[in-house]
């Protein structure tokens, strides 16, 4: 009985299941991007202006970039459960992906702020602007132009990495695909669907990012 069920072909209800997965991928990626970017901007700025913060946070950034996302997800999952911070896979995924995003965004923010020619900043200060005015009106807008394309690249990485959130029980698109493959054995159709889904999101965005990069360079 169960085996018959397991080999059942694709049904219309599965389309709904996949749509749920798709929505979950978007939700997770959006939440982690938002959290990670905001934290990353603050962290990156602090790392630029304060030597103490730079030294104190260096291990955090280094480790998040040298440990696989799967491991980070599993660690976030088990640590947050141990600490009693709920059991929601969405939350685990957001914490793990958001932490990674904040670390890499901080580095982009820092590099972009440092790439602002010191002369512009001196010009601004020479006109009587204070440090915060200079940051707000000169450094940030200029850093934004250099940092935008690399930041988009990070968002793309994050979207792709969100496909791993299945390991902590979050049913995003890749995980729902895998579940359906196990049940229906419609391997190619489902895999092609998954490939297309990610490609259709990532390809246009990465094209745009490369276009931006070229524009900034000239």
């Amino acid at each position, binding site marked *: 009985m169960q085996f018959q069920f397991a080999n059942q072909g694709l049904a219309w209800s599965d389309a709904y299941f996949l749509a749920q997965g798709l929505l979950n991928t978007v939700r997770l990626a959006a939440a982690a991007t938002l959290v990670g970017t905001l934290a990353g901007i603050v962290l990156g700025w602090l790392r630029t202006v304060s030597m103490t913060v730079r030294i104190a946070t260096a291990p955090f950034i280094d480790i998040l970039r040298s440990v696989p996302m799967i491991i980070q997800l599993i660690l976030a999952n088990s640590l947050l459960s141990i600490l009693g911070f709920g059991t929601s896979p969405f939350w685990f995924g957001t914490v793990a992906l958001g932490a990674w995003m904040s670390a890499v965004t901080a580095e982009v923010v820092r590099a972009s702020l440092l790439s602002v020619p010191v002369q512009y900043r001196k010009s601004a200060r020479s006109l009587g602007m204070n440090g915060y005015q200079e940051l707000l009106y000169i450094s940030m807008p*200029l850093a934004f132009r250099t940092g935008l394309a690399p930041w988009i690249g990070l968002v793309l990485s994050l979207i792709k990495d969100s496909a791993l959130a299945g390991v902590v029980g979050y049913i995003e698109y890749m995980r729902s695909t895998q579940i359906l493959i196990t049940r229906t054995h419609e391997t190619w159709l489902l895999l092609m669907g998954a490939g297309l889904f990610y490609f259709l999101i990532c390809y246009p965005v990465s094209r745009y990012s490369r276009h931006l990069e070229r524009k900034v360079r000239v």
Partner: protein
Amino acid sequence: MIRISNVQKAFGSVIVLKGIDLTVEKGELVCLIGASGSGKSTLLQCINGLEPIQGGEILVDGISVHDPKTDINKLRSKLGIVFQQYNAFPHLTALENVALAPRVVSKRSRAVARALAQKHLEHVGLGDKGDSLPSQLSGGQQQRLAIARALAMEPSYMLFDEVTSALDPELVGEVLETMRLLKSEGMTMVVVTHDINFARESADRVAFLCQGEVCEIGTAEEVIDNPRKEQTQKFLRRENRKPLEIVRSSVA
């Protein structure tokens, strides 16, 4: 009046200024000349507090620039500075470049700041370029824009750091013309330059910097045409041999 007394400045262990004494009177144009690396840019940036100093004192209208109690941002609006390059903020139009500081520093309304900006753009001959981005302006126009931007804060002093050195020879003239205009209006100016001809024609006094000190100071006639110190003579001989300078002076 700018009064610089015994100013010492080091970057780490590298001593750049060893005790500079210099006074700039109201309405005067003082040219600073000297080999590259002699500390001319550093001195200008010390004058408006962009660089800290390790000893001595700089007084601008009697106010000490490096005294921690001084409101440096307020003092700076008295001192306009224009650099060799990277002056115009690339993300703002010419008008916005000029209007920004009046708006955020002097807290003028947007409309007043824009009107003021337009007035100063016209002053330097860029009245019709208000909507252009710096990338759409020539190097000479960008430098004039930087001058207009500084003037919009209504400074009492203008500091120029080799403002024509990065320009194509044919663009040098328009910038020097603008500087001459300022002088004719009575602006007090400190001008770092390699353009010996400009110094000879326009400077009230010329100061030659070498080895972190003011080696020789006097009228252009004294310092450029009849230098007494050996270092000054050597420096001027080298400058006169540079082919680029000859081209520039003939255009200017």
